[in-house]
């Protein structure tokens, strides 16, 4: 059964969002120097020379309750402010140089947790102390108003890492001075690490960068007023710098000019019997100050690396494990292989669900529901019910399960929520 979609009257913003989700890729915005800017999935900022010029910028981000929050960030080259800061992708063995240009009126630095032997302006990166012995920065900072520092290291360990300010981190990291660093192994960009069983489908590589905001801190920084860090209490929680539903909008969505990274994972069902049908990979990072238990529905992940370290024994024993909750401690990262297939192989003709499907009038239909249990099939949508399903695709949610954190200062069901979009096997009518 196939009926025309009936678009409902919805707020313009949501319609735009849905259009961006389901239609062709938007033109790449100019504010990240990415090799490719796919509609969905990880957006890498790369450098042929291994040098990245990062400049501090200030700007505002849009939050799900309609508020805007003043933020700081690192931007690549001369790009506008973006949040979070660019995803730096490098290859294992690269000598990586990050030149920080500080435009803020406070000293700023960059730490690279998980990287060894980091150099700052040619000397080993070390904490800095004042003349009276007080810790002033975890590494050499760039002076306010145009100071620069050049950090360098050899990216020896493949995996997922954070980079973040090492100066007043309780303020500066929370203001947005952080980003992700992906080190690709020498085995190839389709591997998570050196192990053969870490291979993934490069079209299904996603980032899950979780963060939090106390708007009073950001307001105080913007206005230059006092703020007592003992009062810190997050009111917003974000995924890739956005809250739901912005989180499922495309990369570089036009109405989120400073929040370029979407969080929806767009995949095809894998064939569980075909070893060549590789899983996707989720790169999870927690830049907040509490643990975030992230739960992908119906889609267990195999955690293959933690904090950029492969989960294996000294003899190569496999210490990966499968989870339905990816619980990230503060500052922690996980590399997680995931795949989805219909375990029962339900089919509209050959293998129907073993229950009578109630009349649409006897159920509430979700706006992403196709109207049919079967992948690739669209059923009748009740007249007037808002619906955004394009081609019978599935949407399966992923979200932080500390449920009070999927709110935005009073607006429930926002925050760090995204979806796994499962498109029907090719050929399909989904335009991809």
């Amino acid at each position, binding site marked *: 059964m196939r009926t025309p979609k009936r678009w409902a009257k919805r707020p313009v913003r949501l319609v735009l969002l849905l259009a961006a989700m389901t239609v062709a890729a938007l033109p790449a915005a100019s504010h990240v120097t990415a090799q490719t800017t796919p509609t969905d999935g990880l957006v890498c900022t790369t450098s042929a020379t291994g040098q990245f010029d990062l400049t501090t910028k200030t700007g505002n981000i849009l939050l799900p309750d309609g508020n805007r929050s003043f933020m700081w960030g690192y931007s690549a080259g001369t790009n506008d402010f973006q949040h979070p800061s660019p995803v730096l992708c490098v290859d294992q063995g690269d000598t990586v140089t990050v030149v920080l240009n500080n435009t803020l009126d406070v000293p700023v630095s960059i730490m690279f947790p998980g990287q060894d032997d980091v150099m700052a302006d040619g000397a080993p990166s070390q904490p800095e102390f004042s003349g009276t012995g007080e810790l002033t920065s975890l590494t050499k900072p760039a002076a306010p108003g145009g100071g620069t520092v050049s950090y360098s290291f050899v990216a020896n360990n493949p995996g997922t890492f954070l980079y973040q300010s090492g100066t007043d981190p309780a303020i500066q990291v929370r203001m947005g001075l952080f980003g992700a660093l992906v080190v690709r192994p020498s085995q190839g960009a389709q591997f998570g690490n050196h192990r053969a069983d870490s291979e993934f489908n490069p079209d299904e590589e996603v980032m899950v960068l979780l963060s939090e905001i106390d708007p009073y801190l950001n307001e105080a920084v913007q206005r230059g007023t006092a703020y007592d860090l003992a009062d810190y209490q997050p009111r917003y929680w974000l995924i890739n710098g956005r809250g739901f539903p912005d989180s499922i909008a495309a990369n570089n969505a036009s109405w989120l000019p400073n929040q370029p990274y979407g969080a929806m994972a767009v995949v095809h069902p894998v064939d569980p019997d075909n070893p060549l049908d590789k899983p996707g990979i989720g790169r999870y990072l927690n830049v907040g100050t509490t643990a975030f238990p992230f739960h992908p529905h119906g889609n*267990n992940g195999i955690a293959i690396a933690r904090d950029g370290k492969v989960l294996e024994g000294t003899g190569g024993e496999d210490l990966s*494990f499968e*989870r339905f909750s990816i619980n990230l401690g503060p500052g922690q990262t996980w590399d997680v292989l995931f795949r989805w297939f219909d375990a029962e192989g339900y089919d509209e003709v050959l293998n129907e669900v073993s229950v009578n499907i109630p009349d649409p009038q006897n*159920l509430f239909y979700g706006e992403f529901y196709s109207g049919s249990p079967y992948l690739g099939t669209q059923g009748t949508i009740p007249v007037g019910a808002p619906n955004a399903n394009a081609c019978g695709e599935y949407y399966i949610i992923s979200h932080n399960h500390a449920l009070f954190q999927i709110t935005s200062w009073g607006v429930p069901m926002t925050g760090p929520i995204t979806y796994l979009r499962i498109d029907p096997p090719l050929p399909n009518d989904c335009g991809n």
Partner: protein
Amino acid sequence: MEQQTPPGISRRGFIRSVGGATMAIAGAGLTGGGLLNVLRPESVSAQAGDPYDLWFAGTDGWMSLPASPAIPPFHPDDLAPDPFNTYIFGFRNLTGLNKNRAENQKFKAAHPAPMFWLEENVPFHLRLGNLGLQLRPDLTDAHTLHWHGFRNVIPFFDGEPSGSVSVPIGREFTYVYVGRDPGTYMFHCHVEDVEHVQMGMTGLVFIRPAQDGNTALYPSGKYLYNDGDGSTGFDREFGLFLSEMWAESHWADSHVQLPEWSDYHVDFALLNGRTYPDTLEPNGSIDPFNPVRQNNGDLIAPAGRPDLQYQPMSALVTCNAGDRVALRFANLGFIESSMTLAGIPMKVVGKDAGLLRGRDGTDQTITTHTVAMGAGESRDVLFTAPPHSGGAGYDTYLLYNRAYARGSGNLGATLGGQSTEIRVYPPGMLGAQAHPNDLQN
């Protein structure tokens, strides 16, 4: 009271024979979700004739938590009827009830939801109804049953309302599960889940492995996983479900208010829906497949504790010396819990319904005295009951959330609410369990 399942008829046969009863409530309107067309409520909805293994329904009700010291103005709730003090949403087990008795369970929610289980590879049908919210007729929320952690589910049976369907007041939907992956899981309503989970629509579910019945690997023939070597065999099993209650949010729902969720904190940390020492009180009727109820279908309170009528699940663990005991933990609080067992080592054999083994078979089990679990995580744990100290009584070991300050249950300087006891009896004193969490004491 009466046994509602007639003797001599198999459970599933009986359920199928009464499965045609409908829950459709005449005149119930679908008043949300943008349904603008003329409604066509059916006197017997198509699904009502489907066979089912269990029949649950969502509704609201009252339960009881330590009343003193008070948390004014939120706790005890001034609207609560004696002997209760906390407003909840919850699931009730309607399995086997007729239409009138089923409808009479509105405003009689329980917490946690009934623990249930199924066998690997055997299709399981769970019928879900929605009785509405008696105290909040303004809330016309649908309900769903989301099986948290079920692998490779299709959205139709996932219970997440945006990508799927949800069950309006007076309607029914049957979820079908074919359990392919043994282990311990949890389930909850996913509609407005910040609220519905916190309000109590949560419970524990597990899948028994196909290896069950093989007595060559472990004498009982009961296992947590298809381990192939008997390493997860056990003699007794206990589900331990962790949840939390923030008094303000419960008061807010009963008083038509909205809480500010970022202010969330744990006032009460619960084990099987109770705080210590109520966790030690006996079970009500907790075998979901053989429910014993009052004539009107209502729950029977545990002996001597009318205030625990809607918290029927004991968290006491009882065993004979030498028994191997399985503890199935599932945490649907919003905060990490850290369960410490004083005096008996625990072996963690499963996490998130997965045997702790690498893809190459590498053993990843952990022996510990403390099991930390984040929100939405589960653990399968085994311990061997130590020798008995002598005499006829039991030896007592404490199992408690090491994060005392969280959810003290207002017990001051003593253990927190998320605490219970493991009682070890002399060898052979306790009979075999009739069902999980059967105390036999």
